């Protein structure tokens, strides 16, 4: 096997547990969308081109006939604004990607795929093949199983996602543990988690991710200033 094929399979294998946890959610999405009046082809088109699980569930929840264009486009921007942060972060580790590869990579950017890519950055070198091993298998799985859910549709009933929703939090926790370096990480996580939970409880919508992320990043910037004299080159020890 060539090095590219090896890297591609390594990415696809790493993301496998996430694919397993995503399958029932994709099936559920397809079934719910069909119940709201979309055809299976429309369900597949939405999964293939929008390709954003959280937004798709919110959109189907607000779906009407005719579907409200302005509201749903605005919702897409709000729900997905977290991607701006994820793209800016992983983009720094894409020196080995060509220009077109970067734009293709951003099309398949998801929360889980991004987290696994950042994990690879921590432990080694993020190659385009590894990234697309994650991205392509996630895209195939999401589109295939949401189409399947749309076709089996109502026969599926309302599949329970019991325990599965926590699988994503568990995956993120495991990746988060890998980011631990010193007490500064603890301070960043405390600020980010605390602000995120408070904003989640107080403000409707998906603003909690942005608020929490900025709180964490703000704390990191402040702590850098305090240690600035010991670190004239400006690189935080890790």
């Amino acid at each position, binding site marked *: 096997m060539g090095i590219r094929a090896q890297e591609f399979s390594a990415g696809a294998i790493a993301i496998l547990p996430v694919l397993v946890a995503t399958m029932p959610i994709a099936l559920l999405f397809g079934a719910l969308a069909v119940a709201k009046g979309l055809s299976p082809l429309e369900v597949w088109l939405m999964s293939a081109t929008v390709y954003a699980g959280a937004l798709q569930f919110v959109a189907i929840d607000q779906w009407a006939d005719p579907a409200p264009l302005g509201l749903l486009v*605005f919702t897409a921007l709000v729900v997905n604004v977290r991607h701006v942060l994820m793209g800016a972060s992983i983009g720094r580790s894409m020196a080995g990607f060509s220009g077109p590869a970067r734009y293709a990579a951003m099309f398949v950017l998801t929360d889980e795929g991004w987290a696994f890519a950042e994990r690879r950055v921590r432990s080694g070198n993020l190659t385009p093949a590894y990234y697309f091993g994650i991205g392509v298998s996630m895209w195939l799985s999401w589109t295939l199983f949401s189409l399947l859910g749309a076709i089996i549709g109502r026969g599926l009933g309302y599949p329970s996602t019991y325990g599965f929703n926590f699988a994503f939090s*568990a995956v*993120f926790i495991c990746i988060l*543990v890998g980011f631990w370096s010193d007490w500064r*990480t603890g301070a960043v*996580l405390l600020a980010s988690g605390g602000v995120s939970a408070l904003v989640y409880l107080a403000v409707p919508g998906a603003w909690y991710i942005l608020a929490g*992320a900025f709180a964490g990043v703000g704390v*990191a910037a402040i702590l*850098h200033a305090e240690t600035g004299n010991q670190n004239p080159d400006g690189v*935080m020890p890790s």
Partner: protein
Amino acid sequence: MSVDANTMLVIAGMAVATYLTRVAGLWLLQLANVEGRARSAMDALPPAVLMAVIAPTVLATGVAETLAAGITVLAAFRLPLLVSVVIGVASVVVLRALTG
């Protein structure tokens, strides 16, 4: 299989808006000066975003989720990812049954 014109327009609109949020990070990166303090802030972005994504589930959903998150953290320090995730999911199912 049918495709409705308005539905197509809405799907296309959501697809463009979503892709814009995905590439905006790349454009932002070209503007940002990643030295010094900004560099420290950018280095903290992955853990800060991860934490912000899971905080509502971990801190503001229920006792079962909070305890299961703690168990997952302990597992993740010693065990491979897949094993830790299975332990986390199993403990949330058990804890939900116990506390629910």
